[in-house]
């Protein structure tokens, strides 16, 4: 069984358009899924047949917490230079009211020609900061610009208890990204910083691969 842990972002949680998906770049087993379906290595996913539709391969994904199945599909976009795959989880995302800054765990196991895929989302931390590339210790909160998430008036007061202060500048995360309030987190070097629910606990600095 393989397991992948990722931090949810705007794209997965209905903050950026109606298409809610996980980009599978770097998640090798899931990237291969398309080819495994097309070559007939996998015939069923979660005991149900796969329906093939032009640019997507449709199946049902299992919510490991609630033991419910949701429509999902694998999408493909190939050009001469790049090959992109994504996992669309719209129905699941709505059901669990997925927001950015959550921890998503994907499981996959292939038994004979049946592939088991399940997903669960966890809220380990109250917030998960994401590092701005090319800045040393500037971090932003992706949920802060999502219209489905409540605006937090007391956020800065709460963060001060962890010695995290607003930078006063705004930053973006790549192309088409909204701008976010930047925060300085001294001593943090890794991709993410998890802020616990209580100020009595410590913040955790981690990379995506540390979660696995």
């Amino acid at each position: 069984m393989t397991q992948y842990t990722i931090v949810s972002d705007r794209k997965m949680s209905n903050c950026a358009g109606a298409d809610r998906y996980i980009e599978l770049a770097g998640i090798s087993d899931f990237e291969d899924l398309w080819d495994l379906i097309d070559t007939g290595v996998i015939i069923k996913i979660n005991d149900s047949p796969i329906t093939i539709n032009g640019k997507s391969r449709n199946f049902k994904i299992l919510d490991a917490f609630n033991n419910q199945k949701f429509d999902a599909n694998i999408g493909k976009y190939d050009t001469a230079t790049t090959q992109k795959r994504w996992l669309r989880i719209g129905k699941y995302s709505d059901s669990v009211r997925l927001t950015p800054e959550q921890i998503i765990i994907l499981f996959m196991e292939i038994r004979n020609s049946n592939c088991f895929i399940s997903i669960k989302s966890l809220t380990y931390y109250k917030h998960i900061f994401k590092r701005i590339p090319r800045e040393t210790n500037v971090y932003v909160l992706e949920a802060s610009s999502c219209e489905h998430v409540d605006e937090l008036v007391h956020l800065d007061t709460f963060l001060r208890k962890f010695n995290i202060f607003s930078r006063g500048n705004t930053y973006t995360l790549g192309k088409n990204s909204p701008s976010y309030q930047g925060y300085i987190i001294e001593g943090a070097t890794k991709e993410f910083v998890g802020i616990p629910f209580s100020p009595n606990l410590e913040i955790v600095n981690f990379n995506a691969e540390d979660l696995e």
Partner: protein
Amino acid sequence: MKNWLYKSNEECAEDIQTLIETEGTIGNKDIIYIYSDDNPEGEGFLLTCKYSISIGRQATLEEFTPLEIDLPYRILYKTQTHNSLIELNDFEYKFILKINDDTQNENLESFENFLFKLETENDLIPTGIANSITFNIGQPNTGKSYNFEESKLFKLESVNKYKYLKIPVSGGIGNEYKGLQNTDLAITYDPIKEELRFGEFLQMLMSAIVNPKVPHVVFLDDFHNQDISSLLSEYTPLFKGQQKRKIKELTNNDIFNEEFSSTDEFIKQWNRFIKSHCDKDEDNNDIPVVRLTNRVSGDSLSLVFPSNFYLLGAANFNENTLNIFADWEDRAEVTYKYPVETFIESDFYRANETDEFLQCCIFMNKKLKEILESKGIFDYERYCFGMWKIVTSNEAIIADDNKKKTIKFFFGMIKNALKLNNKNSEINNIGWELMQQMQGNEWFKSNIKEVVATTEVIDYKILHKHNIYEDEI
């Protein structure tokens, strides 16, 4: 009446009336709690306001002191997004508002009865048990426990019509949690569940009293691991032969109630039962009642000695069994297992009588007995070794490659027995004499050791090799 939880970071959710209109299932007398995840102090979430819904679905703000709360995970993720409403079930409501469940505590205090009415079979008694209290003492492998096993005492078809409990008595010196304690057999206090606990032994005895036609057997296996007088000290005043009585059949079943409101209530009911039912036995004699001290909750437990209760014990000779019987010799039928005699009576012996190795072992035991007698030692059951060591679980004689090892083991057993009985100075003499006498057996001579049968000079090296040597300094 339903309880709802609504997440809103605005003060007391001013849009509450709109919410009620869109959410059709909110009804009269419902309560809506508002919580915020924008708590500057951290430490969980803040329950800020409380609305009650009246007729006409009107929300009224009630007086409420904000409360820091913790959320079950289902609630947390279902209310992650903006302005989410969720119905709370009973458990979640109590968890969030930190309401202690009183009904649950009452349940914890109730006492579940361990006494049941059992099926009976006329005149069923355990086979081969002469006395209610019977102890077998002997060397290892003399078949002490064998006749006390469940299958030897009762026929298969009588199952469920008797009760049998085997308690392996363990030592565990230095660790109060390891060994069997006398309190395990009687009443103890369980500090974790905060309640009285009735030991298995006591449960059997009480069950025997209320089921007077059903034999109840407790078998204390290997009780030499502890001092039996101390282990059973609480029962010493009860188990006197002259106090044993045939209890009458029960006339009412109050004592079999499944539950009592508390342990104390059960003890009171039990004592009432003993007082009313066990005043006279079947032959209209008085029944002596002995009270088992209950230091924990006050009321002592009245007990009688029923004739259908059997206490069996098996033990080796050691410092705990050398002189246990000041009090228990009087109460128990004590049998010493003579290794050779009991073995020769067995079916196994009759079937394998001609085996050379078997004859060698019996020869060795008999010669040892003669040597001991010549030195004025007559309690040779303490020194001779158990013969069942040479029999495998398939009722065959052990394999050839084990035979030499077993003879060495027997010499070791003899040495240990001599040591235990303060005959250290005799180990070498008896060992050498036995070695010489054994030359009369052909199997021994050809397989173990040939020594010159007449020499008076002890060859300590040979004795050491055969594990029956003690240095003489």
